[in-house]
């Protein structure tokens, strides 16, 4: 066993890349859930983003355009969920699972012509000055733009929910839609916007998989990442900062266990392989035992104005 072969600088850099898709998707889902809507269709939206982002990047030659298209496509797809749950008052859990089926099916039909192709990936962006700092520079400041974007989005969502009036309304709608309605807020409109935002974020996360992290299009390539994103929102007790911690913790343990295997660590492989899940549970237990914020009170409940 030679654990010295694990280079912490490279390890951290890898963790950031590995965690970005679930970070983006989880952040979007958190906003959706903050508004009181539970959308279990993250996996379906992510994979739609993955295929659309890849296809557009191939056809246009621009990965950034791919990301934009992915966000748009997944957001539009998520509106189908929005219309069903907000206007037709359908059950959110079942509709979300239906959305997953639709996304998986649709993506593989769209993706057929793009199998086995290579797209241009995002360039690494060395931030001037900062990237020249020894150790930290390579670790933190020479990533592609989406990594920084995801971090900025965490800060943005945090500030939005904490300091803006719109954020306050969103939270009010999620805590008690009846009171929010009584105060004159458009509950359904707020929720539709949140769902749209959540779809866009999931699309970006999916496109990050197909354009940067893997990068290629293969049917079923999200392989459950959307479910992990859902779990991360719960882990984070619906707080933006903790979504970041959760995503990096999960991504971190995933990458670390592979590194430990590569370095020949003397730990049973089956245990290492299950460790990301076990450690996430363990950390959640520790956090919960100290008292945690609960879910938004109206989460998953349908809202109808006239009752």
């Amino acid at each position: 066993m030679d654990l010295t072969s694990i280079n912490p600088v490279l390890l951290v850099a890898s963790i950031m890349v590995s965690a970005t898709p679930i970070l983006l998707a989880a952040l979007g889902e958190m906003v959706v859930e903050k508004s009181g809507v539970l959308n279990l269709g993250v996996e379906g939206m992510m994979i739609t983003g993955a295929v659309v982002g890849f296809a557009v990047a191939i056809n246009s030659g621009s990965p950034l355009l791919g990301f934009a298209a992915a966000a748009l496509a997944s957001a539009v797809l998520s509106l189908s969920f929005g219309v069903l749950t907000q206007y037709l008052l359908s059950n959110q859990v079942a509709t979300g699972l239906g959305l997953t089926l639709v996304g998986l099916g649709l993506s593989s039909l769209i993706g057929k012509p793009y199998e086995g192709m290579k797209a241009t990936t995002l360039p690494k962006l060395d931030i001037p000055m900062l990237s020249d700092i020894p150790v930290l520079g390579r670790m933190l400041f020479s990533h592609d733009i989406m990594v920084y974007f995801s971090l900025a989005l965490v800060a943005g969502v945090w500030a939005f929910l904490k300091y803006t009036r719109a954020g306050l309304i969103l939270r009010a709608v999620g805590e008690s839609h009846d009171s929010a309605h009584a105060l004159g807020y458009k509950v359904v409109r707020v929720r539709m916007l949140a769902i749209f935002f959540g779809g866009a974020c999931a699309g970006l996360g999916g496109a990050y998989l197909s354009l940067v992290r893997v990068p290629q299009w293969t049917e079923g390539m999200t392989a459950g990442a959307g479910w992990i994103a859902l779990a991360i929102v719960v882990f984070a007790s619906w707080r933006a900062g903790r979504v970041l911690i959760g995503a990096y913790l999960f991504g971190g343990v995933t990458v670390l266990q592979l590194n430990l295997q590569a370095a020949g660590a003397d730990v049973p492989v089956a245990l290492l392989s299950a460790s990301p899940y076990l450690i996430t549970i363990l950390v959640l237990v520790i956090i919960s035992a100290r008292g945690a914020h609960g879910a938004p009170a109206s989460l998953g409940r349908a809202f109808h104005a006239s009752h």
Partner: protein
Amino acid sequence: MNRRTLLTTAALALSLGAPAFAESHEPVTAGFIYVGPIGDGGWTYEHDKGRLAVEAEYGDKVKTIYQESVPEGADAERAITQMALSGADIIFTTSFGYMDPTIAVAEKFPDVKFEHATGYKRADNVSIYSARFYEGRAIQGHIAGKMTKSNKIGYIASFPIPEVIRGINSAYLHAKKVNPDVEFSIVWAYTWFDPAKEADAARALIENGADVILQHTDSTAPQAAAQEAGNVITFGQASDMGEYAPLPRVSSIIDDWAPYYIQQVGKVMDGTWESTDTWDGIGPGMVGIGEISDAVPADVKEEALAMKDAIAAGEYHPFTGPINKQDGSVWLADGETAADGDLLGMDFYVEGLTGEIPN
């Protein structure tokens, strides 16, 4: 509907199904059960290429049907039965997990021919077939051993099953032969197919100093990770993965099922099909070696091709003694070659590999 009519209908369907049509009808129908989606770019994709080759070869005289993403659990037997009922004359079940379901269905449809890939159970109407991928692994090991500068070779393994262990041993033996300092780091991904995880595994190996990545998982994600890292070479798995040539992909093992599928379907057509046990390698063309790219030095390429020819001609067996097991006990004496039975159920590492096989 009462029980009796239900039973009669069932019996009727079972007896009518394929057999009644089999002798008389044209064209011959060949069915394929796939474990993944055709778009997986690896295992299932190559089987489907075999199916298309059958169509191209026989044109109107053959009809092919398939079902994708059939789980190996409770749904397999139903899928195979439905295929037999739909009038298939020969059914290829293309994953190990279909072994017992294939045998069970074959008992009910004695006139339908079945071909099960990578298993070991046969019957009068069930043939088995598999490929000696370890022959290709030997060539990979040779190239890897010659080309590594860090003397560290990374290996992304899927599950600890004989097929995978055989590949690791074969690659290791041949790398070691040309480079005594070589070390293997093995990462068990516990998946056949998860591009993101495969990419992470490749990065972890590269960051731990490996400059050659061998993979026994199906996606091209490790190729892309190697390309991004630079100065790392890889080998295509299952399909050629030629889009990553000449670097990082310097060669590949290609599953080429087409000749076998064409031959077996042909035998059904002319009525000469019988139950067989096929384990073919490079010689008959079931294992293809993708073009060795110019990134490989000319002398290494020449040696690799010579080894390929020797294996194809049957002059060289990749598991030729002396070979010891990991614990130092003797497996093969000098000059002895491995028996197929030993290879099929291989559950040990050869001497020199570090770490333990999970479980």
